[in-house]
């Protein structure tokens, strides 16, 4: 998990790898049948969620059990403003992201006083509060039943062109673009000085402090990036799929982010995206045979924590490709 020494050969390899992933995803849309086309769109959005989660968990070493609240902040930040105030898609999207950023700062100031198990519990409780809030304000959210955005609110003008979010191809490519942006944000973050500081905190916080790092401020920054990216995924979900329901803020979604990250490889840029892809299809296939797909999730979680803590890309990085960011 050591950030490899910077050298231009490595950065060329790294950039090519990430570009290849984007290109493959781009080409996939032309061959995928309709069902998988839609599934991949969802997976890309959830991958953004997991990649955001990974900034805090994989790089900084803080295990949150409440990231669904950030996803929810984006979902409701975008959805409620679009639904009730009639905000255009770009404005609603921005409002979702800002809601996520504000919530991240608030949660950071409370939860970052703790670490380890206490941090898990505090984030879980705060997320529970957020979930209950979505039920309590049923007048605006319609709770479990949720809100459905109107057809009209799902298209917008962009430099003279009309963007229609009901078009599957538009949704696919927008999600892909956001995934690409997320990838480059995280890559830049973890390759730089901040990345080194995050890893130092993950590996030995008291020592990091004694080496001149303001660990609270750095953790707050990590949580801000992490929560805001998760909220971006939530806002995207709301606007692309036009449905805003409280089920997205349940603990199930927090666990999913953890699970996707663990499977793909915590502390690697692409790991969470890979984990999201595999886990999504695993659950999808399992649910054809059993209604107990939650059991699959639980078993996968236990297996990963006990026997495979580095995840797929983490193991590959450790064994063969130390330059992997």
């Amino acid at each position: 998990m050591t950030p490899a020494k910077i050298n231009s050969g490595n950065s060329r390899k790294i950039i090519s790898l990430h570009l290849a992933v984007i290109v493959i995803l781009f080409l996939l849309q032309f061959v995928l049948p309709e069902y998988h086309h839609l599934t991949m769109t969802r997976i890309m959005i959830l991958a953004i969620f997991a990649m955001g989660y990974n900034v805090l968990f994989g790089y900084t070493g803080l295990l949150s059990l409440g990231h669904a609240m950030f996803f929810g902040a984006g979902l409701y930040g975008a959805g409620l403003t679009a639904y009730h105030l009639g905000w255009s898609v770009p404005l609603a999207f921005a409002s979702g992201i800002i809601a996520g950023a504000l919530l991240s700062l608030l949660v950071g100031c409370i939860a970052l006083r703790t670490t380890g198990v206490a941090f898990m519990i505090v984030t879980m409780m705060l997320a529970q509060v957020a979930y209950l809030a979505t039920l309590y304000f049923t007048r605006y959210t319609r709770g479990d039943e949720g809100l459905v955005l109107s057809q009209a609110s799902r298209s917008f003008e962009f430099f003279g062109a009309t963007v229609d979010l009901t078009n599957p191809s538009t949704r696919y490519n927008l999600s892909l673009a956001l995934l690409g942006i997320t990838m480059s944000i995280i890559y830049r973050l973890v390759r730089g000085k901040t990345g080194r500081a995050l890893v130092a905190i993950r590996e030995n916080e008291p020592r990091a402090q004694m080496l001149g790092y303001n660990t609270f401020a750095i953790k707050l920054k990590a949580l801000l990036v992490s929560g805001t990216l998760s909220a971006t995924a939530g806002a995207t979900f709301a606007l692309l799929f036009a449905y805003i329901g409280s089920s997205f803020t349940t603990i199930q979604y927090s666990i999913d982010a953890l699970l996707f990250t663990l499977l793909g490889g915590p502390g690697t840029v692409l790991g969470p995206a890979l984990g999201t892809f595999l886990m999504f299809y695993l659950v999808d296939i399992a649910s054809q045979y059993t209604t107990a797909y939650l059991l699959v999730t639980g078993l996968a979680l236990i297996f990963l924590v006990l026997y495979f803590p580095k995840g797929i890309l983490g193991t590959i990085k450790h064994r063969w490709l130390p330059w992997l960011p």
Partner: protein
Amino acid sequence: MKLLRAHNLSKSFGGVQAVQDVDFDLEQGEIRAIIGANGAGKTTFVSLLSGRITATAGTIEFRGQDITDLPIHKRVRKGIAYTFQITSIFPNLTVLENAAIAAQNRFHASPATIPTDGHPDIYRNANAALQQVGITALQDEPAGAIAYGHQRLLEVAMGLALNPLLLIFDEPTQGLSDAEIQDFCKLVKQINQSTTVLLIEHNMSVVMSLAHRITVFDRGQVLAQGSPDQIRNNANVQAAYLG
């Protein structure tokens, strides 16, 4: 010139008065040793200086500036580096990366001298620190996998990579072999050419060969202070400590 000055410094843990009304100052450029029996309050005292714990009472000045209420990271950035009594490194990261983590927060006397070339500069300074303690060959090993003696040297390198004005060691020779101790003494003398050194040490031959002055702690207070010869011949010290 006085580099550091502590006045009336006290720390109590519940009922235990670990450090009591200590007045202490450090001359710029000296090597100072702190000695004293187990539990005398040595670690507590230097932890107050580094900011790892906060004082119950008293003040600390560094280069004429009151730092009593500064958090750890700000003291480090003012030039105070501390190595832990119990080895504390980043075991999963490479030796070089350990040093780089420190080098990233290198002390700069003035903002004008902060170089702008980022990463290459960090690794250059990290490498220089590893070279100074002589573990360059291990730079790509995971720090947790190298020998204990080398881990202690890595601790020193991390301190050096910070480019400190004051380097504090807490029992640096504990657990080292005689040969390693000799090398360590040479290293400290070399470090001292540019840095003030404060070390807690139980090994009296190390203390006698390195220290310009010695401070003796006893039950949280300064029992005596002076040159190695003065301390050797001090009756109180002999009674209380040297035996």
